[in-house]
């Protein structure tokens, strides 16, 4: 069964006009279609200048995160039938907008770099690979499923105010290596996340958990990071 939806889209086309505006499009979509299908239809049949990111269209690449009806989601994973007839779409909050729904993710990826997102182990590697038992993998399984879409970090009120805050996504990445039994850089990693704008800035607001398209309980992981930090003698930031 198909139905008409009104897409209200926040537009920003800096080559034409330095200010933002809201455009409305009426799109007919069936109940199996997603917000991304609506956007593609608009771009192909109504306004070719509409700009947004997408790649996989199946919730694995993380490029189509945007704010849909007041909450961050993946456009390719949000069925229109679950939304009201008026669908409001904006770029992810608190990041510089490049054009329409495309934001500059540099800041987001830079945070990721700060938590040393690679395995650190100076011990000579075994002949084939550093084997991980299924039990050990289980410890980090949830955190590994992150697709780095940026929904969580840009949904966090702390990040909105404090752009230096590492944010849920980077902290989750820190968890992924801190709890990896093959990693040896515990001290160095804890040092990296316990600064003034690190893990102590998390106030367990849970906005990140509400939006994560992979349904990762990010706050649970951050709380575990706090407990690990305290156990290892990192009991506060700065000063």
């Amino acid at each position, binding site marked *: 069964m198909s139905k008409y939806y009104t897409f209200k889209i926040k537009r920003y086309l800096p080559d034409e006009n330095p200010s933002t505006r809201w455009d409305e499009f009426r799109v007919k979509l069936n109940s199996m279609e997603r917000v991304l299908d609506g956007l593609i239809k608009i771009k192909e049949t109504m306004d070719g200048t509409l700009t947004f990111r997408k790649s996989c269209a199946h919730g694995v690449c993380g490029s189509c995160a945007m704010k849909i009806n*007041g909450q961050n989601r993946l456009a390719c994973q949000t069925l229109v039938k679950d939304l009201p007839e008026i669908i409001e779409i904006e770029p992810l909050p608190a990041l510089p907008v490049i054009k329409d729904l495309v934001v500059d993710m540099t800041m987001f990826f830079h945070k990721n770099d700060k938590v040393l997102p690679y395995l650190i182990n100076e011990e000579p590697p075994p002949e084939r690979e550093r084997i991980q038992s299924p039990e050990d993998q289980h410890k980090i399984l949830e955190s590994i499923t992150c697709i780095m879409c940026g929904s969580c970090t840009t949904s966090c009120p702390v990040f909105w105010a404090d752009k230096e805050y590492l944010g849920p996504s980077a902290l989750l990445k820190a968890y992924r290596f801190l709890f990896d039994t093959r990693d040896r850089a515990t001290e160095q990693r804890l040092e990296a996340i316990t600064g003034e704008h690190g893990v102590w800035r998390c106030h367990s607001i849970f906005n990140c958990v509400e939006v994560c398209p992979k349904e990762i309980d990010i706050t649970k992981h951050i709380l575990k990071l706090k407990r690990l930090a305290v156990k290892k003698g990192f009991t506060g930031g700065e000063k």
Partner: protein
Amino acid sequence: MRYRWNTGSLAWLVHRVTGIILSLYLIAHIYVLSHLKDPVAYNKLMAFMKNPLLKIGELILFAIVLKHVFAGIRITLLEMGVSTKYHKSMAYVGALLVFIVWVVGAFYFFREVF
């Protein structure tokens, strides 16, 4: 910017706002009390505090303290390892407890006015 509110974000906002109010109150509280070293000044303040309007102010402050305390207990429990599964229920139960304790406290407050 408009963004959808959730249980967690509302709980955080209320916790933060009450925390700031309490800290400002603490400053005034210590400053005022430190100027009360003789019985005359002290009894004058106490008589002044009997004013029903101030009693209402005290009740509001009492509510703010309770709200902050229960929000703080919720966060502390989460940080000590209570499952995040319960974070919403903890917020609702906390709000209920705030209300109950406030009503009981208000009863004793008012008993003093009359």
